[in-house]
């Protein structure tokens, strides 16, 4: 079973426009989270949001790949993780639209082990049963 997160979306907008939304600090703040991003490989930055379960609201990141209008990657260290994970954005032009592939990989930290464990061990059904019992 693939334990990484991989999501794919198509937006009816140009590659340039989507790339800007992914790499502009103000734009990112509007749709993702307030941040200190800069378009520079090696730049260390943070996302900040409200704390939630297993998550203190601060994500520590570092830009690792920056291929303009094609690929952007940064490390992602937040909540319950003792090692950074990796967030990779890949853009592909499709006629007048842009395909966006988001991958969140490298879940090998504390949360990652828990994730692999839970997803890979038939726990899902068991936990759902457990919840049903609680709700009954």
């Amino acid at each position, binding site marked *: 079973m693939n334990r990484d997160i991989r999501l794919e979306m198509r937006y009816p907008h140009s590659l340039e426009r989507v790339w800007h939304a992914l790499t502009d600090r103000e734009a990112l703040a509007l*749709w993702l989270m307030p941040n200190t991003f800069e378009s520079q490989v090696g730049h260390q930055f943070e996302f900040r949001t409200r*704390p*939630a379960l297993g998550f203190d609201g601060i994500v520590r990141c570092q830009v690792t790949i920056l291929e303009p209008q094609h690929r952007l990657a940064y490390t992602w260290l937040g909540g319950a993780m003792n090692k950074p994970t990796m967030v990779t954005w890949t853009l592909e032009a499709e006629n007048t639209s842009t395909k966006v592939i988001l991958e969140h990989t490298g879940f090998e930290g*504390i*949360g990652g082990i828990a994730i692999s464990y839970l997803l890979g061990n038939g*726990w899902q059904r068991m936990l759902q049963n*457990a919840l049903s019992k609680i709700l009954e």
Partner: protein
Amino acid sequence: MPTSQRTDFDLFTAIADPTRRGIVDLLKTGDQSVSSLAAPFRMSRPAISQHLRVLRLAGLVTERRVGRERHYGLQAARLREVYDWVQQYQQFWTTKLEALGTFLDTKVQS
């Protein structure tokens, strides 16, 4: 760090250890004593007790006395919280990609 976060951290720490995951797996079939839990691991009872302590502090197992022995049982509801955390991450990105779409659409109009 707030107490709840500390507890969450303990939860993930507890589950990160292979022996403790093995213990949790064994407890899926029902409550067990320390000696029956220790048998498959080739570990001393004190070593298993130490692992059980971590699991208990994380709220994953409960302890009760049966005669002279201590028996341990799984708190499945607590594991459910870990599962929810995983689901939240997947949900987080799904929501954000939708927000990106809305952001892009709005920008065209302005």
